[in-house]
């Protein structure tokens, strides 16, 4: 395929994915600690701090504890953060400061393969972190099984969606400081308003509409259904949304990175 085509993508991308795995294993203790401890921090803060003030919450006409309400949100936020921060800050460092992509492009790898591997690696980190968190949260009886096991493949889909949009930002930001903008305007509002710590229905109508455009809202909804063991047709629409979001931003990320790096 022609050198100018951004979509020269073969299975060779797996080699780049393996490179990231080698690095991950070198510092696995650092990588394992956050997903192990973070859910405990959240449970401590919200469970002991807020739960007593709030009591129970009505979700789909079921009364659930506040802890059961926020557990899926903790998982979904973690899926978002792991892949988004991997394909923004970490990928930017590899691309711009470490010249890792330059070195790869002196081998039979194409840029399309490098970017594909970075996004899939971001999703892989989401899966690893989600699996560790699930074990911790299950210890508190907050996840219903076997339905809860579906959260693992879901974390891959969520990781692809947020990894792809993160890589898209990496392709367009002029400098690493500028990631503040998508974090301030995209990640932080989602963290707060995507049905994470209170139901979306509590928002004014216009804000509810806005929340429905955001991918985290759908990822939280899906995770919540699976945590509660509710495998219903309601899973279909948010899944389709995340698929379309990924199918849109994955090639878009490759195109902007191609424009940035191939000169």
């Amino acid at each position: 395929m022609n050198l100018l085509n951004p979509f020269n993508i073969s299975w060779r991308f797996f080699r780049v994915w393996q490179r990231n795995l080698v690095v991950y294993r070198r510092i696995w203790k650092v990588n394992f600690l956050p997903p192990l401890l973070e859910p405990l921090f959240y449970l401590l803060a919200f469970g002991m701090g807020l739960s007593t003030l709030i009591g129970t919450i009505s979700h789909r006409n079921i009364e659930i504890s506040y802890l059961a309400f926020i557990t899926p949100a903790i998982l979904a936020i973690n899926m978002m953060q792991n892949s988004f921060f991997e394909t923004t800050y970490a990928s930017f460092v590899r691309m711009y400061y470490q010249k890792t992509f330059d070195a790869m492009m002196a081998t039979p790898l194409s840029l399309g393969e490098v970017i594909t591997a970075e996004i899939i690696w971001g999703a892989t980190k989401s899966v690893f972190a989600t699996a560790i968190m699930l074990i911790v949260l299950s210890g508190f009886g907050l996840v219903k099984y076997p339905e809860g096991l579906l959260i693992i493949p879901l974390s891959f889909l969520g990781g692809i969606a947020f990894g792809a949009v993160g890589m898209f930002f990496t392709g367009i930001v002029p400098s690493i400081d500028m990631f503040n903008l998508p974090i301030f305007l995209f990640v932080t509002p989602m963290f707060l308003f995507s049905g994470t710590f209170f139901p979306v229905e509590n928002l004014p109508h216009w804000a509810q509409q806005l929340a429905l455009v955001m991918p985290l809202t759908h990822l939280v909804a899906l995770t919540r259904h699976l945590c509660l063991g509710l495998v219903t047709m309601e899973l279909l629409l948010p899944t389709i949304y995340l698929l379309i979001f990924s199918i849109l931003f994955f090639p878009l990320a490759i195109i902007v990175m191609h424009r940035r790096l191939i000169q």
Partner: protein
Amino acid sequence: MSHVIEAHDLVKVFNGFKAVNGVSFELAAGECLGLLGPNGAGKTSTIRMTYGFSPMTSGELNVFGLDIRTQWREIKGRIGVCQQENSLDPDLTVQQNLEVFGRYFNIPKKIARKKAQQLLEFIAMEHRQEAKVSELSGGLMRRLVLARALINDPKLLILDEPTTGLDPQSRHQVWERLELLRSEGLSILLTTHYMEEAARLCDRLIIMDHGEILVHGKPSDLINENAGHSVIEIARPGNEVREFLRSEDIRYDDLPHRILIYGRENDQLFDIIRERYCFENCSLRMATLEDVFLRLTGRQLRE
């Protein structure tokens, strides 16, 4: 003779700026070809096109008889590249840098490990295999970059300023290894700022400026044709010597505090000048590539 690289009329335009403007050259198998030129001459752009890093704007470029536009993957699998900027992977150890890089070429794990060991011996770094890249000196890093470029047993080695920024010891270390590789029949394309490096390593040179080739040929021929056999340098020259040179129609460069006269073989010019015009502040030396380079590309600073 079969050509490893055949480049015809290469053009590279960046945002309306012509970095490379109609460059043509060939590299024969087993040959070492050097690209010389001031900063911004288009050397790096030219070799980046050669290894498929940067798509050419127009022209024809075949490597191993394959078209870079369509068969870039096969071509890249058979060349080794040392880029100008340090692109070693700081997240990996010395050994892992070689192994992981070998995996990008789809080299099986066991073979990549064995090859990495051999290459560490070749660059005399076996004892540093577990070191982090950030702990290495500039010279060791450059040797590691060279070893990494050899992981796939390339038939062509492309080096962009392989010894820039190195101390003399490290530079000689790199040169010795490159000479060894050359003697084994590896074809080499390199860019450099160092005339000594070009003269020592290269069979043939191309001097470029402003994206175009000025001259090409063997180092000794380039010196003879463009600077002559010897150079007389006169420090703080008087006006009489200038008048004499003009009247005799002799090639010379007039610098603010120095005159360089380019002489032919066996001429008596030095004796005449020393006797008539200066007694202690003039000297005779062999013409070098540096004379050629500065005569052709001028003495003004770049960038």
